């Protein structure tokens, strides 16, 4: 396995011996990983390996079956519901489809966390919202409703909403799904720019290997409930590991098989003929 040096860097998320099962199906079996503060960290892996579940565990939306999830040094298991909510105020999350509130316009969507958590004067809320919308290039769309936005625009508005409370950690769940190349490029640049300009930690789950490798500082490849490779994008792309080569090269068959487990093909076909 590749190894990424984390010397002299403080960890913002630490996962220790994490086990997680759904309906007796084991998603994670002894997962250990550390996410460094101030970096863009990407998680990749075949579908169904639990990448989104990992985000849910980091944000306290789901509790692990066993093991520890520490965010900013705090074990999530020790936090009450209010404690989790207080921690989430230090996080921002961009959902796959943006998850904008459809009954509010762009301005109110971005202002939503401020209205819920602060008693700032209207003038200041307006300035903050416009500043964040300017950062994502959508100040001109302030009066539009979510239904009037393209997929890329909706995600940028959601990004503005995610950074409105100046979070320490920004989480992106499959931010490029269904985007055209231009929108994808815009989101990619924003991930890097926001991370560096705001001094935050970015955690990105994505399948788009080349794109995410162009902005990530560190990459984790998950498969079978474990980290099978980790390192810089360059290390990952030059890896000789079969699973890494299959994933990075987009090969149909390999350690992750093309065929879903099934009985013998010919036996099944012959059995059908006999039945007819």
């Amino acid at each position: 396995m590749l190894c990424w040096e984390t010397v002299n860097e403080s960890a913002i998320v630490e996962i220790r011996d994490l086990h997680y099962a759904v309906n007796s199906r084991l998603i994670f079996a002894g997962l250990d990983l550390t996410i460094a503060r101030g970096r863009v960290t990407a998680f990749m892996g075949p579908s169904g390996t639990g990448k989104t579940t990992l985000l849910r565990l980091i944000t306290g939306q789901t509790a692990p079956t066993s093991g520890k999830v520490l965010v900013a040094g705090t074990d999530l298991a020790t936090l009450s519901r209010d404690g989790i909510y207080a921690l989430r105020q230090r996080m921002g999350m961009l959902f796959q489809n943006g998850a904008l509130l459809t009954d509010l316009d762009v301005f109110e969507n971005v202002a939503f966390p401020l209205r819920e958590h602060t008693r700032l004067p209207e003038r200041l809320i307006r300035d903050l919202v416009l500043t964040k919308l300017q950062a994502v290039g959508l100040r001109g769309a302030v009066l539009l409703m979510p239904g009037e936005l393209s997929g890329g625009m909706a995600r940028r508005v959601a990004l503005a909403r995610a950074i409105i409370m100046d979070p320490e950690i920004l989480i992106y769940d499959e931010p490029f799904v269904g985007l055209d190349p231009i929108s994808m490029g815009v989101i990619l640049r924003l991930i890097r720019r926001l991370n560096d300009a705001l001094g935050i930690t970015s955690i990105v789950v994505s399948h788009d290997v080349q794109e995410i490798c162009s902005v990530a500082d560190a990459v984790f490849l998950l498969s079978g409930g474990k980290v099978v490779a980790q390192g810089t994008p360059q290390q990952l792309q030059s890896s000789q590991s079969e699973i890494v080569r299959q994933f990075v090269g987009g090969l149909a068959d390999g350690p992750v098989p093309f065929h879903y487990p099934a009985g013998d093909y010919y036996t099944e076909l012959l059995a059908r003929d006999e039945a007819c």
Partner: protein
Amino acid sequence: MPGELRNRLVTTLVETGAMVRFLFRILAGVPRALLRFDLVVAQVYNAGALSLVIIMLSGLFVGMVLGLQGFQLLQRFGSEEALGIAAAIGLVKELGPVVTALLFAGRAGTALASELGLMRATDQLSAMEMMAVDPVQRVVVPRFLGGIIAMPLLAAIFSMIGIYGAQLVGVQFMGVDSGSFWSQMRSGVDLVDVTEGIVKSGAFGIACSLIAVYEGYHAEPTAEGVGRATTRTVVTSAVTTLFLDYLITAMFLK
């Protein structure tokens, strides 16, 4: 078969228990929701004002049918003047609350359930949780309160329009004496009759709103799941309304 029946009974009991727990969670959020009453007012508008046309039209037609049927029946006994009291009692105590609740479940209840279900399916509720905003507090409680406030008001409007419809048919078309129609109604309808109607519409409001927000909030986040939640809202609301109607009627029997 008995095993299947037992399973369904257990499922129903578990579901009812979960709904009661959800009700307690909602009730815990009511004091804070009252501090942001603008959110509740918006939901009274959605559940109430937007249901007004269908309620008023239905009330008018139900009242007119009541006027026709009542007139025909009472004419046999030569007591057409009693049409006013018959229509008023029927509407205020029974038809007003029950038909309004059924219409409310069909119009506002399904809208609530599908709205919440779609919010779940499009991650809007998860996004709220991630913004450290409790979706039950912010989304469910105002909708629940909006439904509870709107329902008795709609039932009152339904009964009022219904009485007008009965008067239109009985007095204007069939020739029942206007004075007798109104005076018999005023002397025959007691406060307890009106109270029964108010209690019923309040209870139906709580039941229909709770069922709608529960089904919507717990809908499976798929198109099929939202559809199922909407259907269950109508069916469960209708059955619960009729069951509660029997219970409350029995309670008010002297």
